């Protein structure tokens, strides 16, 4: 045991991060500034400018159609959002919503292609599987450190950390969905002379849609679960209110903000789940 001195793993990682920070400074700065501005614009100049009653009405109507004209979800939307507004947490809600939207979108944009690559290539699958396991089991707090190193504080590092944490399910489920397509259907596709792309877009992806959507649902939920953690590095929103409650030992404030997150989670979850119906399903 004594023969081997403590390996300087921590130093290596730190050095690597420093090197990355220096080398890609121009890129990180660009993302931090321009992308940061865009996020702020989206939250403050778009979402927050919509009159609250109109926002609630639109979401409620969408909920009505998304849930196949059932009344439960729209009623929940109206009461839930009204409650958040009543607690004077509307701006926080819009910020949190923005964070979740951007983190989820980026996760999906990155995750689906990787999932496809994994499904089409055995070697990639073998290499990526442990990486994905690692990404999901590493405590989410750890991602805050490089996020701050690259992007300092604010929304952008929050999105960055959330993306790392939330992407794996989309990759996994895309891979799974494509691999689940039965051998006979792949043969049928090949027998009619499809190119790789035709097979992917006409057979594999449509048939994997349900599974991929289940993965995306998980990704969105994970992004939402990062909200409080991300607020520790300055991401605005309901998470910050929770942290404030913690710092002041103010149970009430923390609880109300937490309730707001739960309401948002339920709405997003029902939306993504109800959107997930496949053509030709027997039900």
């Amino acid at each position, binding site marked *: 045991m004594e023969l081997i001195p403590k390996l300087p793993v921590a130093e290596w990682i730190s050095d690597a991060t420093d090197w990355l920070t220096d080398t890609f400074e121009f890129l990180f700065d660009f993302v931090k500034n321009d992308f940061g501005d865009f996020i702020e614009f989206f939250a403050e100049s778009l979402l927050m400018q919509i009159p609250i009653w109109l926002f609630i009405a639109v979401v409620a109507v969408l909920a009505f159609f998304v849930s196949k004209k059932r009344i439960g979800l729209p009623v929940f939307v109206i009461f839930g959002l009204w409650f958040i507004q009543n607690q004077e947490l509307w701006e926080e809600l819009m910020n949190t919503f923005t964070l979740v939207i951007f983190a989820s979108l980026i996760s999906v944009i990155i995750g689906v292609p990787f999932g496809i690559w994994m499904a089409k290539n055995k070697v990639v699958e073998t290499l990526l599987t442990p990486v994905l396991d690692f990404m999901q089991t590493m405590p989410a707090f750890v991602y805050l450190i490089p996020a701050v190193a690259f992007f300092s504080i604010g929304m952008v590092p929050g999105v960055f950390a959330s993306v790392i944490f939330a992407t794996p399910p989309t990759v996994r489920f895309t891979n799974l969905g494509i691999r689940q397509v039965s051998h*006979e*259907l792949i*043969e*049928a596709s*090949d*027998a*009619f*002379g*499809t*190119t790789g792309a*035709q097979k992917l877009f*006409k*057979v594999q992806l*449509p*048939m994997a*849609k349900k599974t991929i959507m289940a993965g995306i649902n998980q990704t969105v939920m994970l992004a939402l679960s990062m909200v409080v953690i991300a607020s520790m590095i300055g991401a605005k929103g309901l998470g910050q209110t929770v942290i404030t409650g913690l710092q002041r030992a103010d149970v009430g404030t923390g609880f109300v903000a937490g309730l707001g997150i739960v309401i948002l989670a339920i709405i997003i979850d029902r939306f993504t789940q109800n959107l997930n119906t*496949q*053509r*030709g*399903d*027997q039900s």
Partner: protein
Amino acid sequence: MPVVQVKNLSKIFGKNSKKATRLLDEGLSKDEILKKTGNTVGVNRASFDVEEGEIFVIMGLSGSGKSTLVRLVNRLIEPTEGSVLIDGKDLATMDSKSLREVRREKLSMVFQRFGLFPHRTVLENAEFGLEVQGMDKEERKKKAQKSLELVGLGDYVNQYPGQLSGGMQQRVGLARALANDPEVLLMDEAFSALDPLIRKEMQDELLELQESMKKTILFITHDLDEALRIGDRIALMKDGRIVQIGTPEEILVNPANDYVEKFVQDVDRSKVLTAENIMKRPETVDIEKHGPRTALERMRKEGLSSIYVTDAKRRLYGYVTADDVSEATKEEVKDLKDILRTEVPKVDKTTSMHEIFNIIHDTAVPIAVMEDEKLVGIIVRGAVIAALAGNEVNINGIDS
């Protein structure tokens, strides 16, 4: 020139197929090669030609290599040795682009479990091949629609495959293959997953379509009856090898070896034949809906002297005779129950020919073939006698 030429074609599954190939050339059998190398021989030096407009059947027991062989023909499986020529062009040396073109234009395949895309409507399924070719929407819709009408599914275009019965699904499979107007149809046990009566119907339809289409068809089956019924020529496969190629008559009369003879003997002795093989679709009347008048009319139309009575769920109640029914209509009897005869000669659908032969002597009405208390077919005396005589048409029942 034959449309499909298969020359010395072999497929060995597993790693290290080099050694196995050498042993194959030395003439070792599938079992020996498996023992020596651990490799499975799928197809063992098969050679045959398929002429234009011919239905060429490949027949063999499960595991004999039929599916592998047909997939070598459109190169879904890469051959270990040998070559496949379509219109004289060797598939094995083609690049992937030319191969795709051949698959799009010359070869279409029909699958055992249908291979339909569940997320596409019947029409969109039938369009698939044309869509892949890049044909524009209107044109391919028209062609797919026409192809569906050909198989009798013109009214189902907007349904999804999951909403159709097995027989109808396979019709979609056939329509999808035909929409491409290919030169060669590859059918891998296309009817094997269907119920016996539907299977027979599909065989009839295929033969009928073939009258006008004159396609070159490579048809795979494990069912000798089916092979004899639809094949112009039959190749018998065993352990990856083709053991005999000939017309149905040649195979029945001059079996090339013991293996073929055993196959054929089974047919002659009709020990393997069961009620299911020789039954035909029953004419029935519904005890709840129909009266003596309908029964009489139906019997007249079909030239029957008796007819079976069931309910809507095909549960068997008995039969009525023509004499009783015409009596009843005169005396204004309204209910079939009053003239119902319940002593019915019944057999299960798995009953062997041998037993049926004993029963049919003592009965005046056709034998009812049952499955789970339901009437699934009837057997008339002629069918039994003809089947025992071992002649090809009658093995498959008589269509009156």
